[in-house]
């Protein structure tokens, strides 16, 4: 399984005088089982890019291929692609509509024309994967808390058994614990099922904590595509395009200026703790040496 974008460009309103270029020469590949973060300021082209991943938008130039086949080719089964690449939009709980949680999750697979047993088995499995408690399966989705509703919405997409799961800001508006729970569950899900996850986020800290690769978008182009510690090494460039590094990165840079030999590539609190302790040990050793 692999999804590949080659020289993809996209213009909104390309046949009018108001054409706006939203994507410009995008090349990227999403392999099996990768946790990818997609960041960029508002208007950088993230959402347009995401909509290319499952064929909601067709590139003005370039190709999108899934397992080597052009998804815009004549005989390509686009419906199948949409179940293979699952998209969870921002505030997905606004899309819940069924009378109870379980029916809502069944809706997708039911529309695939699967037999009832298969539909229910999939819904069951999806709800388990997002950690939704079984006693609430028959509850109306509208009576749930924000975090629970969001789990149901994500389960609805998982029930389609996608190979790539794309989440657009899945934690917006959730409290810190709710945020950690949802992201933890997604990471766990990725381990369990081996699917790829693309996480669109405005929180550098969340991205740093969970993903193994970060794609930074700016002005419709890919600015960086690398491991978190490498990407967050470009603090100045990130700030120029309206982003930032995680808070700990700034702390470490400051300590480095003050003469502590910390590793400024650390991007999470625990990594930062370890490198600070290490640097303190070294510094103490030095001072003792001088005495």
């Amino acid at each position, binding site marked *: 399984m692999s999804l590949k974008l080659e020289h993809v460009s996209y213009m909104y309103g390309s046949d009018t005088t108001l054409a706006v270029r939203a994507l410009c020469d995008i090349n990227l590949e999403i392999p099996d089982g990768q946790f990818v973060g997609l960041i960029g*300021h*508002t*208007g950088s082209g993230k959402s347009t890019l995401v909509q290319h991943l499952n064929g909601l938008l067709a590139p003005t130039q370039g190709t999108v291929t899934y397992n080597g086949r052009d998804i815009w080719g004549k005989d390509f089964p686009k419906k199948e692609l949409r179940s293979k690449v699952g998209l969870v939009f921002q505030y997905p709980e606004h899309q819940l509509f069924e009378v109870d949680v379980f029916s809502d999750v069944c809706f997708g697979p039911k529309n695939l024309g699967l037999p009832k047993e298969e539909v229910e088995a999939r819904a069951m499995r999806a709800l388990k994967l997002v950690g939704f408690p079984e006693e609430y399966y028959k509850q109306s989705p509208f009576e749930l*808390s*924000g*975090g629970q509703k969001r789990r149901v919405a994500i389960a609805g997409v998982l029930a389609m058994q996608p190979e790539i799961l794309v989440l657009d800001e899945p934690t*917006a*508006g*959730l*409290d*810190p*614990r*709710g*945020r950690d729970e949802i992201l933890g569950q997604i990471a766990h899900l990725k381990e369990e099922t081996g699917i790829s996850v693309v996480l669109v986020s*405005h929180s*550098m*800290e969340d991205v740093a904590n969970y993903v193994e690769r970060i794609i930074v978008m700016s002005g419709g182009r890919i600015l960086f595509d690398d491991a978190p510690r490498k990407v967050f090494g470009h603090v100045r460039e990130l700030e120029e395009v*309206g*982003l*930032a590094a*995680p*808070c*700990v990165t*700034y*702390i470490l840079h*400051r*300590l480095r200026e*003050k003469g*502590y030999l910390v590793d400024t590539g650390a991007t999470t*609190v*625990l990594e*930062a*703790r370890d490198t*600070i*302790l290490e640097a*303190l040990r070294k*510094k*103490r050793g030095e*001072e003792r040496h001088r005495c």
Partner: protein
Amino acid sequence: MNIIETAHVSYDYIRHDEEGNVEGCTRAVSDVSLSVRQGEFIAILGHNGSGKSTLAKHINALLLPTEGTVFVDGKDTGQEENIWEVRQSAGMVFQNPDNQIIGQVVEEDVGFGPENMGIPTKEIWERVEESLRAVGMYAYRKHSPNKLSGGQKQRVSIAGVLAMHPKCIVLDEPTAMLDPNGRKDVIRAARALNDVEKVTVILITHYMEEVIYADRVFVMDGGKVAMQGSPREVFSQVDRLKQLRLDVPQVTLLAHELQKSGLPLPDGILTVDELTEELGKCL
């Protein structure tokens, strides 16, 4: 003088079945008594469902208490004849930048509030100009709001409230949907209102970093005020906050972790400068 004074405020959301009979009620705010002085910068934290937005809606009489009283600038919000004055003293900005803007042009949108108050045209324009300048959006006064970024829209919303010359402004998760830059600009605008214009600011947020400049922090849980104090006092209690489904700023968390590893750091470190200074002492 106290701009906001709540005494034993409780609020019940009442659920109705299809025939309109009362099915049950949920107590969202429970016996909250607090007071806010004119000119303070207050932050309210709390997990989803803790009652913070419900409480905030009492401040400009969008909700009226089931029990207890709310006074805004000396006016009881429960008295119907006070409602317009209360709403003029206390303005509100919500989370979603896309559903608070009604004008076709930025300056018209900002002028909407004072226009409805019957302010003379000349003064409306003066107010629009000063409000847009206060939030750093004056250069965009002739733009269409549709073309602005989320952070810019939120600042226009704030200007719209500001143009009504409120004494107090309630910001209910104004940055939840914004990117890092938008977030910074909105918080900067809110702090400037407080510092320069002396407007009382009440900020509800899930971003702990936005709270460290507040004069006082209230933490809500189960409809009650569970913790209150200066940011330093509140963020010293890392474990208690985690229990309440909250967090602390990353600097504070890092200091807490270093402390657990045996470094003699004080509780409640809030800024990078404090951390570097304290680490210096550990050598």
